[in-house]
């Protein structure tokens, strides 16, 4: 997605509007020194942000930078631990999204939540006062023409009598926007609105945004697509690691600047890998395709090698890994293990082929919270710990304790429910479970997400050891430092395809991020990732 794909007239019009309205009244809402913590992790760190009427204010940053969290604080999904939220100059705290909606502030989340069996017109009216006829019943004619009117005012022509399930993703998004605007919207927060849209549909969305602007509606545009960000926004704010890095008019910034701000942290040497011997290909993917998620994936991972897969949310990395593990089906392509073609239809078959996957969602996919750490560790290999079906408790305990010790799991005894452990220790339980399986191919999906620094180091050490033991490791991570420190090779994924590959020596935060966001800029290979 390059800036050129956007109609320059739209960009011009948007720019003109911005100049006219940007110096009016108080901001629609403003956040002052807002901080939010989850457990031990600071998601948002003393951030300031405000939105003027009639402006498009883009919010940019890597995965986990805190953008979504910040906006959720605005609409009342979270309460800030410190700092204040002001609306129209007054300190207000919304306690729920519905509160925010009555003040005219709407959020359009990434997951589209509509009613598939109801018509478009009806979806706009769910939960609202419906127009009534004289005799008291719902006036469908009025409802439909009003719905049609609102959609047309957004410049869109959708048959309002169709059910939402018949609509394309793009049209559903329009319906969601229209739904948000049923009340008098003054501010709309769009979270990654274009991740599933074609270029033409993006253009249409931009026309709608321009129209909203002209009506004085303020828009927060959260996106990682820098081309779009430059095409549509008046101001851009960059966040990194929960902190506010920079806010400036779009005209004063270049994509280069943005990327540097997004990644420009001191590249502390997180971890130095020990040299491991890289052997024969362990895992090979040829032309792997699954409609709507990823296409034409070719990848070779060798024994002793760590291949990092970088990319932004929605790139398809998790879907790919889950397909290799047998959770999702594959439309086309082959998976080869140690040179032999394998058909992987289920996690069990994948495990038989020596593959194991550490899921992204620890609590809903990786662990059974009600069970003990011990039981969680042994679950995947239980079949091997039994004699005639009966679990050999002593052997199980010893095996699990052995793996747990290797990882120094702390916080509660192994027999306690795993829900009692901290995030970092929970992740160690998941890894102990992985170790128990003794796979030769490891697929790690965000293994250090929500984990404290100390545990992170231990996890890195483990990965290093495993590589040294000739395991083939695929490391999916949104933390660039991690990917850069740990990988022998980095592959970048964007919108379902591999778009770049770097060796450890070639890769820098900038060129990896550039490939992930699709911005074609030249980087001076000498310039480092130092803060601008």
């Amino acid at each position, binding site marked *: *997605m390059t800036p050129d794909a956007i109609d320059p007239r739209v960009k011009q019009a948007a720019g003109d509007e911005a100049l006219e309205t940007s110096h009016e009244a108080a901001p629609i809402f403003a956040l002052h020194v807002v901080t939010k913590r989850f457990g031990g992790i600071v998601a948002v760190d003393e951030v300031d942000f405000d939105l003027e009427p009639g402006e498009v204010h883009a919010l940019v940053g890597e995965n986990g930078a805190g953008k979504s969290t910040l906006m959720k604080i605005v609409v009342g999904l979270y309460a800030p631990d410190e700092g204040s939220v002001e609306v129209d100059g007054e300190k207000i705290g919304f306690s729920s*999204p*519905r509160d925010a909606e009555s003040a005219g502030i709407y959020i359009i989340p990434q997951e589209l*939540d*509509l*009613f*598939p*069996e*109801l018509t478009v017109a*009806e979806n706009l009216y*769910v*939960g609202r006062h*419906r127009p009534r006829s004289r005799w*008291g*019943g*719902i006036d*469908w004619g009025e409802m439909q023409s009003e719905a049609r009117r609102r959609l047309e005012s957004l410049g869109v*022509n*959708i*048959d309002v009598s*169709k059910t939402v*399930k*018949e*609509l*394309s*993703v*793009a*049209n559903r998004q329009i319906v969601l926007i229209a739904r948000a605007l049923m009340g008098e919207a003054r501010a709309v927060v769009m979270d990654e609105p274009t991740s*599933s*849209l*074609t*270029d033409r*549909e993006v253009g249409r969305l931009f026309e709608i945004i321009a129209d909203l602007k002209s009506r004085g509606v303020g828009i927060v545009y959260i996106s990682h697509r820098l081309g779009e960000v430059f095409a549509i926004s008046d101001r851009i704010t960059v966040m990194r690691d929960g902190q506010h890095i920079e806010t400036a008019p779009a005209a004063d910034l270049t994509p280069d600047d943005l990327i540097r701000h997004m990644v420009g942290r001191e590249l502390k040497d997180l971890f130095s890998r020990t040299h491991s011997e890289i052997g024969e290909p362990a895992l090979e993917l040829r032309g792997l395709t699954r*409609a*709507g*998620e*990823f*296409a034409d994936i070719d990848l070779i991972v060798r024994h002793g090698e760590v291949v990092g897969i970088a990319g932004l949310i929605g790139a*398809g990395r998790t879907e790919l890994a889950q397909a290799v593990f047998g959770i999702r089906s594959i439309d086309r392509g082959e998976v080869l293990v140690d040179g032999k073609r394998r058909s992987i239809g289920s996690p069990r078959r994948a495990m038989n082929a020596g593959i194991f996957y550490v899921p992204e969602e620890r609590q809903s996919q990786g662990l059974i919270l009600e069970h003990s750490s011990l039981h969680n560790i042994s679950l995947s290999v239980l079949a091997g710990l039994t004699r005639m079906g009966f679990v050999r408790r002593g052997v199980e305990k010893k095996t699990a304790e052995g793996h747990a010790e290797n990882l120094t799991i702390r916080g509660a005894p192994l027999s306690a429910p795993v829900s009692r452990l901290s995030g970092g220790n929970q992740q160690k339980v998941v890894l102990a479970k992985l170790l128990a399986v003794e796979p030769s191919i490891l697929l790690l999906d965000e293994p250090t997400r929500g984990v404290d620094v100390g545990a992170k180091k231990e996890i890195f050490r483990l990965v290093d050891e495993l590589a040294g033991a000739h395991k083939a490791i695929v490391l999916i991570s949104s933390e660039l430092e991690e990917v850069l420190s740990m990988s022998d090779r980095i592959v970048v994924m964007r*919108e*379902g*395809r591999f778009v770049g590959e770097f060796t450890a020596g070639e890769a820098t935060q900038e060129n990896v991020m550039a490939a992930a966001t699709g911005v074609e800029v030249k980087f001076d290979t000498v310039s480092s990732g130092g803060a601008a």
Partner: protein
Amino acid sequence: MSVHQAPASSRVWPDSAGSLLRRFLLTPEAPALVFLVALVTFFEISTGRFLTPDNVEGVLAQVAVLGIVALGVNQVVLSGEIDISVGSMLGLCCVAAGYVATASGGIVLPLLAAVAMGAVAGGINGVLVAWGRVPAIIVTLGGLYGLRGLILIWTGGTWITGVPRESRVLGVGSTFGILNPVLVLLLLLVVMTVVNRHTGWGRNVFAVGGNRKAARLAGLPINRTRFLTFLLVGLFVGIAATVFLGRAGTVQSNTGAGLELQVVASVVIGGTSIAGGRGSSLAAVTGAVLIGVILNGMILMRVPGIWQNVVLGGLILLAVSTDSLRRRILGGRS
């Protein structure tokens, strides 16, 4: 460049008779209606006497009780729940109506007694499901046997007979030349169609059944909506009981036994999805008529009555399997 493609359905359909037909075929009740028409045509061709006004009226009168209850349970299923206590509820309401009828005659009092009884039973169901957090299957399973037990305790196992003629008017009389049961059924069908189409509660039932999470986020009164569906079932069962009392003239301790199975079968075969959020009142009545026609046809073809359960069970499995396949095919990957 993007991997995601927009399907052609985002184009607006042209307005033409052909597309009107396609729109009809996509409604929930279409398959059942088509099948019903086919079945009726078959019977008309083979017997030559099926489509006479008398016979049609007769069939509709026979399914009236089933249809009225199905209209009520349809709301529960639309909201994503289930109610298998209606058979025992019917028996209980018949007992109430029967006693009042034999004691004081008339039609108003027995009707009120039946409806009140139903409202209480349905109301308790509703409270337990909506606010007591007891799953509907447990509440109505307990109700199925519990209410039947209540009937036994109340009547002591004796029948109720000697219901005066005037109290049976909803079952055997006719008004404007139409048999009363049919009239009541059609009236309630119209009422429910209007309610489903034109009231806030009616539309909310679809929303709650279609996507409960989104309904909650949209601020819909979910508990109240669900409670009212169970209450409605109670009311309709009360009305149906008065019709039944009229037609049967007596009340036994096993009155209504097995009705719940026929009702669930009617609702799902008619086209209402067991998952909730999709269906209509017309679907429920069409389903009831279909069940009635099938069971009737079985009798005409000398198929022994003992096959009824097999047919019902098989139809339920067939209907929900088809619904599940339809959802999987049309749902696809969004």
